[in-house]
């Protein structure tokens, strides 16, 4: 029998599993740190409501700066505020920040090691109907390659809320990607969270000889959990490792996980080039070479559709993960 930690959502596999968009958790978290830390300031590029910065803006208007649609200037204004001792959070859609303002982030935030927290909402294909122009599926690659930058992709609202608290305490530049659409909540208040720590959310059934380790990040955690459950029930021992932090990379956690499985599958709503799966492959190629199947978007743009349609089309749904794992063992 596979096992899951007691601290994850007990109704995870029920039909009525609860859920929310993880950006909602960010909104709660930012409001909470606003209450406890006077240095926290928030800047938004005309997307206050959808990035959920509105909660902070309404509670602490004197520490909220409406930038207008000016992501490039927003990154550098935040750098200037950090130079004066503030902890600025900047929010827009990931396509525009860090998409449009990458160089400003590189020169004025990362190179200066400025204590700025970059929130990229509406990342991934799950943005849905807005279509390919608004689906940031390159942002992990863009930020992972930048020195000094921490890269986070929480799965659900509860985790995003904890991550927001954690990055406030962490000194240095952070990028956190969030999603627009509601996804099932995997974690609970009791689930541990630490920057740089990967968490095993499913341990494979040790009775099965064949095994697959599924490594995921962000919103695809739930699909990975459902796929893992089905695989264990079908006779393939499947485990799930969640990388809420992509950088710094949890080398020990990933190595221990990889050693314990015949095959590795990575799943993310991101290009397969440069994303979390690439980070896993880069690391394991050095210390524990093995076959790794990277699931994600294959060098193409997204399109309009519902979250379910798009996850299915780009093979990020539970069925696709199960089928891929079965083929590996075929």
């Amino acid at each position, binding site marked *: 029998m596979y096992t899951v930690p007691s601290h994850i959502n007990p109704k995870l596999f029920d039909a009525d599993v609860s859920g929310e968009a993880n950006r909602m958790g960010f909104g709660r978290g930012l409001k909470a740190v606003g209450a406890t830390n006077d240095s926290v300031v928030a800047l938004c590029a005309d997307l206050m409501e959808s990035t959920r910065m509105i909660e902070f803006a309404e509670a602490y208007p*004197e520490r909220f700066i409406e930038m*207008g649609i*000016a992501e490039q200037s927003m990154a550098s204004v935040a750098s*200037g505020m950090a130079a004066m001792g503030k902890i600025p959070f900047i929010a827009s859609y990931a396509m525009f920040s860090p998409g449009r303002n990458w160089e400003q982030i590189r020169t004025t935030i990362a190179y200066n090691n400025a204590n700025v927290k970059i929130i990229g909402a509406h990342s991934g294909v799950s943005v849905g109907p807005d279509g390919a122009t608004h689906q940031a599926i390159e942002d992990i690659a863009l930020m992972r390659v930048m020195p000094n930058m921490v890269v986070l992709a929480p799965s659900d609202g509860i985790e995003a809320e904890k991550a927001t608290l954690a990055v406030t305490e962490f000194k240095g530049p952070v990028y956190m990607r969030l999603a627009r659409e509601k996804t099932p909540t995997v974690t609970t208040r009791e689930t541990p969270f630490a920057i740089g720590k990967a968490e095993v959310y499913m341990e494979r059934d040790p009775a099965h000889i064949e095994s697959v380790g599924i490594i995921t990040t962000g919103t695809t955690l739930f699909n990975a959990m459902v796929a893992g459950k089905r695989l264990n029930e079908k006779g393939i021992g499947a485990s799930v490792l969640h990388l809420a932090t992509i950088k710094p990379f949890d080398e020990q956690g990933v190595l221990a996980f990889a050693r314990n499985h015949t095959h590795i599958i990575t799943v993310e709503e991101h290009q397969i080039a440069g994303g979390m799966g690439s980070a896993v492959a880069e690391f394991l190629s050095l210390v524990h070479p093995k076959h790794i199947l990277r699931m994600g978007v294959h060098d193409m743009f997204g399109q309009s559709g519902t979250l379910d349609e798009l996850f299915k089309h780009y093979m990020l749904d539970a069925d696709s993960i199960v089928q891929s794992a079965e083929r590996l063992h075929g």
Partner: protein
Amino acid sequence: MQYLSDTDVLALEKKANEIRISIIEMLVSAGSGHTAGPLGMADVFTLLYFHVLKHDAKSPEWAERDRFILSNGHICPVLYATLAHAGYFPIEELQTLRKFGSRLQGHPHRESLPGLETSSGPLGSGLSQAIGMALAERIDDPYSAKQFYCATGDGELNEGQVWEALMQAGKEKIHNLTVIVDRNGIQIDGFTKDVMPLEPLAEKFASFNFDVQEVDGHNMRALNDAIGKAQAVYSQPSVIIAHTIPSKGVGLFERDFRWHGNPPGKGPEDRVPKDKQAEVALRELRTLQGHITGSDIH
């Protein structure tokens, strides 16, 4: 702004000349780098660091200092030379410009060298950072006396980010912000009027709700007066369009855009051969040929 006596003006002009000599020496030592902008802005930088700014070279992180942001990082030879002459680090270190292991990179890195308020080089981001600093200060102390200065190039104004920032500075009425534009009329590919015309520039700034002044960027007293007036403006941010002569101080290099990105020894040869360029420049500066004018004292 504190009044400049005739003696003060002469002392500042002499200091600017020393800084120009350092700029030439460091560029020659580096074998690459920008000549026109640093020489052209030497008077502005001298006035700022030796008269205007509240700062302490012995305590670069002094919290109460004014903030000076260099946005067009490629003119950093003038910033490095000015900081060294002001006592932030040894003047001898200027000779390490652009060399392996040096704290004086080809474009400034804040984390490497004391006295730098930011890293710059990619154009257009300095004004935003100055705005961020001023906004942070306003949150902490709405009545703060700190002043925030940002130097930009005129070619740099081609960058879209600058106009994002100008819009915000006007919106937020950042009265303690003074932007100094190095209006030398050149950029890498030619004259600014040909590459991307900026005029009517003063009207553009005014329409973004800035207080606008235009001054001779080599006249210490006029510059000082303009900065004083900029500080007195209490309902708007200020911009000073400083009309400068590219390569000011070395007659044979002046007003020629080909000196934008070349050091002495690698510049255009039609007026002075490459192997004589450093010598000619240093001789002119060291003999003070007409460079100490006392501005409008006479």
